[in-house]
């Protein structure tokens, strides 16, 4: 199958244009905005940032009669551990994002768009600014685009280091110049978003798929993947495989195919222990569960996990699951914005208990406390960061309980990994 997103020789505007780029924008501008939203609905495209919400439906939530400005925001705050697809996409095919934003902006009636990119991606932000400048020079961005009467300004806004800003309402707070603390919903951003105006927030990969959908039609896109998980997805694979990296594959591809055919299999001498299939927040799968799993929204939900951002973290035998969970707990505790008590305190408790277990000071009761703390966080906070901590805790403890018990009894479960800690 031909790639839709990750293509060669489209880094520059010239290359992108030569490959047929910005034809979809021209086509879109001749359509009615509502027709574009309908086409995206028909495509079955779902949010690629992690939540998997239907994109066309999200666009249609913008109130039809809303007066005043509307905004389109691209979430390029890629920070979910294990995820590195948006970076690759922005480096390799920046104009798919720029064009996708112009089309989406037209569909929702936005006069301006912001790409909120994590601050660490300095080179990628510089590149986007250069390419937006080039696109503006050709009349694809700016006022009266291609003589259509539609105007759309596009700005790059750099984050300053906060995982929580990947949550869409925290991102809006940050974009407005505040601490990135998520907002209570409702009101949803489509009604009251950036600067109080109706706003759509989409992930980089989601927006970059829009030009192809307009060019070839929603039905064509829907024919790729599975009936409910349409299209291609960027899978980012890290861990001890021969060819880690970003792979664009139809949704529904099996983990086994991704690992063996595309990533060249596990490195010599490595045995598979576990897989985190959708970024660090998603429940871990055992090796057997992973080898039987298909990678799409429904299949992974049925397997007890989530597709998330498509970040596939391969964990080999010899890695201590208690240690890995401690690494994750340190991260979530550090990144909790502090707004909700269950998250702020819960992440801290979990980290402390794991520190105890890891240092051989734990007790058998710690395992129950760990699990019940996580259970007490689930679904009890403004945003899903608490869930993102709770889900790995509960799945790690459930599936690798013997390792936690070994730690509670004062032994590391994977002594061969001890020196590598």
């Amino acid at each position, binding site marked *: 199958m031909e790639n839709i997103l990750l293509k060669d020789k489209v880094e520059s505007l010239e290359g992108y244009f030569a490959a047929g780029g910005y034809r979809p924008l021209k086509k879109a501008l001749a359509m009615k905005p509502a027709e574009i939203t309908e086409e995206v609905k028909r495509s079955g495209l779902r949010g690629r940032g992690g939540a998997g919400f239907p994109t066309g439906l999200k666009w249609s939530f913008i109130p039809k009669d809303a007066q005043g400005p509307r905004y389109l925001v691209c979430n390029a705050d890629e920070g979910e551990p294990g995820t590195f697809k948006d970076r690759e996409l922005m480096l390799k095919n920046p104009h798919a994002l720029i064009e996708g934003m112009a089309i989406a902006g037209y569909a929702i009636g936005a006069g301006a768009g912001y790409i909120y990119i994590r601050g660490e991606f300095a080179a990628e932000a510089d590149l986007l600014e250069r390419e937006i400048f080039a696109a503006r020079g050709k009349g694809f961005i700016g006022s009266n685009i291609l003589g259509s009467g539609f105007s759309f300004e596009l700005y790059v806004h750099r984050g300053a280091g906060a995982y929580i800003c990947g949550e869409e309402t925290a991102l809006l707070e940050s974009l*407005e110049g505040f601490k990135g603390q998520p907002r209570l919903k409702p009101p949803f951003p489509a009604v009251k978003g950036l*600067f109080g105006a109706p706003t759509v927030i989409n992930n980089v990969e989601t927006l970059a798929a829009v030009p192809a959908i307009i060019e070839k039609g929603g039905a064509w896109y829907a024919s790729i993947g599975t009936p409910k998980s349409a299209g291609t997805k960027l899978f980012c694979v890290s861990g001890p495989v021969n060819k880690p990296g970003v792979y664009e594959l139809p949704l529904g591809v099996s983990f086994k195919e991704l690992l063996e055919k595309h990533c060249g299999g596990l490195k010599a001498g490595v045995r598979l222990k576990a897989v985190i299939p959708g970024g660090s927040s998603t429940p871990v799968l055992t090796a057997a569960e992973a080898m039987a799993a298909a990678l799409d929204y429904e299949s992974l939900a049925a397997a007890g996990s989530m597709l998330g951002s498509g*970040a596939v973290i391969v964990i080999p035998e010899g890695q201590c699951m208690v240690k890995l969970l401690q690494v994750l707990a340190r991260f979530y505790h550090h990144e909790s914005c502090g707004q909700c008590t269950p998250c702020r305190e819960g992440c801290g408790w979990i980290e402390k208990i794991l520190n105890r277990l890891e240092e051989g000071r734990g007790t058998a009761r710690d395992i129950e406390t760990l699990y019940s703390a996580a259970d007490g966080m689930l679904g009890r906070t403004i945003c899903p960061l608490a869930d993102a901590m709770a889900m790995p805790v509960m799945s790690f403890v459930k599936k690798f309980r013997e390792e936690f018990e070994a730690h509670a009894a004062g032994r590391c479960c994977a002594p061969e990994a001890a020196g590598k800690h």
Partner: protein
Amino acid sequence: MPFTLTETFKTRAALVCARYPRKDAALIPLLQELQREKGYVAEEAMDALAVFLGLPYSRVKAVVTFYTMFNRVPAGKYHLQVCRNVSCHMAGAPGLLARLREKLGIAEGETTKDGLFTLSAVECLGACGTAPVMQVNDTYFEKLDAGKLDALLEDLRHGRLRAIGR
């Protein structure tokens, strides 16, 4: 010592503010601009920016302390930021950190006496396929190992910060 915003800064600030319907939205980009000029954001700089944007000082301070990329004290010429999250952890980040601590004689969060290096352990840098990863100032160094790290440090000691590609 009083802190004055430079004319260059004010000119750039006007352009940045123009991107937003409310100028206080420019707070984070302008803090980044100040950090680019001075290497860190001093208390006095926060105060000057608060006055410039017509914001309470508390708002500026709250933002600076919330986000990890703002340095409130001068960082070394080269800020070594080693990712310690799960993919980098499995690929050997703890060993790289230990090596840096030993070679530089400092712990995470500290700066060498000559002001050349600051060492930090940071969370996921979004480059997990090329783990382990370290960012030096704005530049990513990927697929690191002990040998590459030593060569990189040697380069930096000679004032050369150059990307080595992925």
